[in-house]
């Protein structure tokens, strides 16, 4: 019931944007990753299904991996400045059980590919100290 309603609203939205002159496929295709943090995303109602921003997700890592991924003298991997592809692959491998871990596999289960990419972009842009 709820889902059905949401679908109708979404279809309506896409249709309305189409009417306004924006191309519907272009809106639908890049969906999540491209929309994160762009001004265009802010004009849409956020909704619980929208992915969190890379920065918001990165903050949840900091309790172990250091503020902004900058970490001194601890057993965990500092994430600041890690190349995007390396971090994104590590998270996918943890999540899919291809790389053994203690709890990183569990944490990685909480994130989609798009979310992992957004997080990895965030950390790649942080200057390690």
């Amino acid at each position: 019931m709820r889902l059905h309603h949401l679908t109708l609203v979404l279809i309506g939205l896409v249709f309305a944007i189409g009417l306004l002159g924006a191309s519907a496929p272009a809106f639908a295709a890049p969906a999540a990753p491209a929309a994160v943090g762009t001004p265009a995303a802010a004009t849409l109602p956020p909704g619980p299904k929208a992915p969190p921003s890379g920065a918001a997700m990165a903050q949840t890592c900091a309790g172990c991996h250091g503020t902004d991924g900058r970490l001194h003298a601890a057993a965990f991997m500092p994430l600041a400045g890690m190349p995007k592809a390396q971090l994104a692959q590590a998270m996918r491998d943890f999540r899919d059980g291809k790389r053994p871990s203690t709890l990183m596999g569990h944490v990685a289960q909480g994130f989609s590919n798009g979310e992992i990419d957004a997080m990895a972009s965030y950390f790649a842009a942080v200057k390690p100290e």
Partner: protein
Amino acid sequence: MNSRRQFLLASATALGAVAFPAIARAGQASARIVIVGGGVGGATAAKYLKLADPSLRVTVIEKNPVYIRPYGSSEVLNAHVTMQDLRVSYDALRHKHGVAFVFDAAKSLDPVNKTVTTASGKVLGYDKLIVSPGIKLRYDSLPGYSEQLADSQVPSGWIAGAQTALLAKQLQSMRDGGTFVLAAPPNPYRCPPGPYERAALMTEWFSKHNPRAKVIIADPKDSFVTDETALLGWNRLYGFQPPAEYRTKLAAKLQPSTQPCALEWIQAKAGGTPQRLDAKTMTLHTAGGAIKADVINIIPAMVAGQIAFDFGLTNDSGFCPVHRATFESTLHKDVYVIGDSSIADVMPKSGFSANTQAKWVARVITDGLAGRDPGTPVWENTCYALAGKDYGLFVADVFKIKDDGKIGRINKARYLPLDATPAQIRLSAVYQQAWIQAFTQDIFA
């Protein structure tokens, strides 16, 4: 003259009209954020607010000039660390991040005029208020128990401080072959694996220093968060035999034991529920009978910190209802409640929860002041715990708001796997220690 004055007035008005939005923006940029409580939640919020916008005027009201961290504080009891090791300075927050501190007790809230008054009569105005008062221990929830007894004879030590030191002294000097009883708390409470970690660490310590000593957990519950992995660890380390309902699942992994285990867990259904304390005879009366002990540690029922009650932020549950997407109180506008005092659905009352809630609220506030949308919230929790000094356990969670509007867990697996290798178990204990260090840095450095 007259016309000149009129001209000046007119231009001043025009100037005013033009300048107003700029002034308003400047005013917002230096908004006053008051934070009540300098624990994990409050200190994290202060640091992350200043990182996001150094121009914010952030003031923390905290009654203690030094923080005594509760996470990892049971390691004072088994002499792994000292009370000194629990002390965390506010210096970096003050001098590196520019957070102002008022070392005083917060007394009352005026949500209409948006002020907080302290015990010494200081009045602080705010644009946004963050309240992170932790928990209040309901010493009166167990007949025969009181705060006075907790401070002098039967410590709780669940808010780290003098009671932690007292309990450590009692345990380390307990008579040869004595009995240590730990009364576990009812749900919900701060640090869900904590009481069981404490009992296990003392069992391990006694095995070396007081080998005939006994440890008994009297529990008003039948289960706890990390129970399966903890019970398996206790079996391996102390010869513990888990209750029947756990044996099926753990069967293949359990080791038989020939000796009675020094550690006993009395579930509610076995009569473990604490009912009354007789401090004179050092007896804990439970639903199943009386337990005479040499050292008793009562971890009583908990509600939101007293400040949450004084500020009118609690509901009938004794905790604080908040809008999930922002952690703004449903009872007072522009007041945010984070950490143990907030009602956050399946998020445990842990330091890690408070830490990620604080960061989210800092984002909600700074984005709100700048007219930006903070987007979709996400939170995490990681609790490391020990079954023994070198035997680590954990629970790990990622949270979002689910379709029912409540905070729900996204990941499926949460615990150390039951078939974890010895290396994973040992590494979890290494990470438990590393986490204390990294977590403290993220909050206070």
